[in-house]
């Protein structure tokens, strides 16, 4: 298999599964040069991407969620790392409780954000990933807390990636589960706010869990239909 054909197959992954099969089949049948085939596929991918960006979903997913949330979640990640360092032994129950709340909130914010990004715009996920990782690289380069590792900025990434993969696969969240998650996150945020440990801007991280709730009834109807 030539390099050109391999690149063509990679580029075709930005198309829907069915269209990818059809296009690669057409190219095999036409016996075109692989580089012409690659240009053809890139042309189709570009047209498809432009069509996708005419919709509000990729914009909301990339600029409304991935980009701003990455800054806030990096802040929350550093908050969790700092809280972990300042734990004063097993007897300080209040601090342990606050630390657990911080960890749970970070996991819930990251997972729900990733899930909504994946669900909102599967085929433009690459753009959302780019918009999320660019601030991460920027902050890692400028990170200046000697007692913490740079990796502490990225604690949110694992749950966010899991959420994004589940969102891409359109995993169905039932209304009950979604509602329970949203209420729990809201309660945790109110608790953290009352103890002065929640930056008010972090309230903007709450909308993905409620978005999951608002779309859950539709999702269950889709399951019934299928």
């Amino acid at each position, binding site marked *: 298999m030539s390099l050109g054909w391999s690149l063509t197959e990679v580029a075709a992954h930005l198309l829907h599964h*069915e*269209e990818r*099969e*059809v*296009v*690669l*089949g*057409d*190219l*095999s*049948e*036409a016996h075109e040069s692989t580089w012409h085939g690659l240009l*053809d*596929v890139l*042309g*189709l991918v*570009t*047209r*498809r991407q432009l*069509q996708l960006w005419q919709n509000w979903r990729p914009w909301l997913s990339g600029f409304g969620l991935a980009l701003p949330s990455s800054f806030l979640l990096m802040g929350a990640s550093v908050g969790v790392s700092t809280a972990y360092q300042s734990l004063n032994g097993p007897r300080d129950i209040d601090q342990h409780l606050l630390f657990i709340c911080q960890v749970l909130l970070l996991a819930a914010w990251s997972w729900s954000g990733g899930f909504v990004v994946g669900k909102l715009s599967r085929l433009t996920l690459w753009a959302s990933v780019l918009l999320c990782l660019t601030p991460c690289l920027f902050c890692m380069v400028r990170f200046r807390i000697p007692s913490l590792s740079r990796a502490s900025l990225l604690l949110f990434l694992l749950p966010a990636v899991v959420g994004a993969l589940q969102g891409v696969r359109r995993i169905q969240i039932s209304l009950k589960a979604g509602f329970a998650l949203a209420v729990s996150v809201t309660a945790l945020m109110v608790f953290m706010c009352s103890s002065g440990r929640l930056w008010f801007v972090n309230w903007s991280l709450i909308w993905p869990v409620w978005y999951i709730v608002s779309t859950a009834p539709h999702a269950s109807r889709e399951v019934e239909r299928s």
Partner: protein
Amino acid sequence: MLGEFEYVLITTAAGLGGQAYGAAIREQIARTTGRKCSLGALYTTIDRLETKGLLKTWMGDATPQRGGRAKRMIRVTAKGVQAAKDFYDAVTRVSRGASWVVNQTGGSAG
């Protein structure tokens, strides 16, 4: 009214009948018009025409010459035939009297 490429695509698909699918249409268009048709232009136009109800598409069989990959088969609907006929009639009407049009007696006006 249809666009020029939409008309070419519908007419080519209608001419190919049961053998109308992406690669065959591209080859036929290149042969009859002398212009290569890109995959992007072909499939975005097919989608647009299908949305308008002028074409119907479905996934066909996979063949060894396609590396075991399926074809997207295409059929022109009755609405598509009517749209192509309307386009042809309009082009014929608008072309009457043009110097390059062969008149009814068989000679060129120019």
